[in-house]
């Protein structure tokens, strides 16, 4: 990065462009099932990278992902649902006039979702980030649950526990991969800026960082709000891809899933997070087929619902006990890294995306 910043940014733009073109082609030629998996991968990348920024880089262990994603998901769903489709979802309740007739294009809806998530993130972070350790974790967890419970209890906006159905699929792989790409690139830029160095300092030693004149609280809040924005976007795309939203999707289990991916990737590494999100998505799909009841060699297998979550929670325990550095530890794929490899020997593999 330091030697040839322009060259590297150039390469990043080219690779990003290629990825988006591939995404565009994949959308129309690949099997919808594969596209869905790729979509989920991209969305998880967005979420995991945001988690890595706050926990891995800044060292603030927060558990608000599910709630923030819910903000984005509901914003996008309510704004993109056509008014007549809204009436189908809202059976017991008339939708609030504010949203009843709203029908926005996807981009402003997504951005508003991100902004609202960032605002809520600020509301959560501003008090919570003054706390440490257990307290920070519990307060953010509590806020996330409050968001979910409020969504259940505001039926004129959210249709309560029944959620919203028939969210139109306006996005697509290009959108999800663009969001993932943007999150990765911007987060990477942030990490390698002077702000990023301050954030890493905060992780290592708060007192020393403060002594050098870094405003701890401002930096922590910045990282948290920055990541909240992208979690909101990810939530909006999540609703798009799933086609439905309901409060149950945003239980703490979603936060734990993101946390599991981040730890699998090696908590401080964006590339690791990207990789881990892919592994998680694919493993999740493979296990889904085990969960479903089916016939094997003429025997009726009842299926094992809950198996996926069980497998991931076992993995999380094993990771935290025996492999805290995850797949990548703190290492990253980067252009410099690829270049150094190329100099030494012939290329072996594609270097990954950054």
């Amino acid at each position, binding site marked *: 990065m330091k030697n040839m910043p322009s060259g590297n940014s150039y390469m990043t733009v080219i690779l990003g462009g290629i990825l988006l073109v591939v995404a565009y082609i994949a959308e129309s030629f690949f099997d919808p099932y594969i596209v869905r998996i790729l979509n989920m991968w991209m969305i998880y990348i967005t979420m995991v990278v945001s988690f890595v920024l706050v926990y891995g880089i800044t060292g603030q*262990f927060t558990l608000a992902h599910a709630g923030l994603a819910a903000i984005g998901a509901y914003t996008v769903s309510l704004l993109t649902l056509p008014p007549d489709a809204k009436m189908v979802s809202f059976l017991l309740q008339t939708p609030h006039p504010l949203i009843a007739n709203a029908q926005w294009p996807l981009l402003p809806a997504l951005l508003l979702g991100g902004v609202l998530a960032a605002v809520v993130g600020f509301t959560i972070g501003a008090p919570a980030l003054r706390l440490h350790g*257990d307290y920070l974790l*519990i307060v953010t967890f509590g*806020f996330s649950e409050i968001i979910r419970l409020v969504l259940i*209890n505001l039926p004129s906006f959210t249709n309560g526990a029944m959620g919203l159905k028939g969210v139109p699929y306006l996005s697509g792989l290009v959108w999800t991969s663009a969001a993932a790409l943007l999150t990765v690139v911007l987060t990477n830029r942030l990490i390698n800026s002077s702000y990023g160095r301050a954030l890493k300092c905060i992780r290592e030693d708060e007192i020393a960082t403060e002594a050098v004149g870094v405003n701890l609280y401002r930096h922590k809040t910045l990282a948290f709000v920055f990541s909240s924005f992208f979690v909101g976007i990810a939530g909006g795309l999540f609703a798009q891809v799933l086609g439905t939203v309901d409060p149950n999707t945003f239980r703490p289990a979603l936060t734990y899933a993101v946390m599991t991916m981040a730890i699998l990737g090696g908590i401080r590494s964006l590339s690791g997070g990207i990789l881990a999100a892919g592994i998680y998505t694919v493993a999740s799909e493979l296990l889904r087929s085990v969960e479903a009841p089916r016939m094997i060699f003429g025997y009726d297998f009842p299926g094992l*619902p*809950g198996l996926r979550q069980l497998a991931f929670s076992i993995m*999380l325990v094993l990771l935290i006990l025996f492999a805290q550095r995850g797949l990548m530890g703190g290492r990253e794929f980067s252009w410099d890294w690829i270049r150094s490899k190329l100099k030494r020997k012939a290329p072996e593999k594609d270097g990954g995306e950054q």
Partner: protein
Amino acid sequence: MDLELFMQFLINGIALGSLYALIAIGYTIIYGVVQLINFAHGEFFMVAAFMTMWGVSQYGMQLGVAFPLATLLVVGLALFVDRTVYRPLREQKTSSFIGAISISFLLQNLFVVLFTSRAKPFPHPALLDEVINFGTVALPVVNIFIVGVAIVMFGGLFFLVQYTDMGRAMRAISKDMEVAQLMGVNPNRVIAFAFIVSALFAAVGAFMYCSKFPYVDPFTGAIPGLKAFIGAVMGGIGSIPGAMVGGFLLGMGEIMIVAFFPDLTSFRDIIAYIILILFLLFRPGGIFNVRMREEKV
């Protein structure tokens, strides 16, 4: 609101408060000795309830056999989790949170896989379903049992902590682990003992709770666990009287909200979370203003 109706709510509030207090003890004891929020406590509670139910419905055991067996199992489970997960992570604060979260998650999902997430009726003595009527005020027998059992358990705990060597060691550890070690206290043994006590309270709490609300599913422990935890924070986590008072106030408060502000009934969980957050932000030591050992992050 007339007096009789108020009495009715008061009776329920006392019972629910005692239940939360019982469960809250489990959190506070563990936090007192290891500064660990045992997220899996609600799941220990669930395992106790589930195993009691399973023993009765599957193996036709008497309740008097099934419940002690389930309690033993939960105590064993708590010791196992402490030894295999919490102890190796003891020096790493954040990792031990993650360990605790993942154990809670693992137990929930294990039980979903083994027993499905369908709620099953909890077997309890028919006596507990009886209701004694005082005029128009109904006093469910189960409430009397809850309060009685809670008083006995608290009394036992008080004796244990105040007058036994193990209790003294627990108090010493929670004041200053290093000095306690210098005085010859083995922290691993004390912590293991704290887990035994905590699991015992979880099991008894589960039995009483599920006798009052007689269904069990793999997520049974989550809500009471959380409420009890909030109670423990309210009282000042790490303090035993704090957990009793905090848990009791939260349970009583929950019923009183239903009594006086019926419109807010569906908001009571939100209110509980808000109380939690306000306490952590403005009075992290709780009502009793407990000061914990300096935390290592």
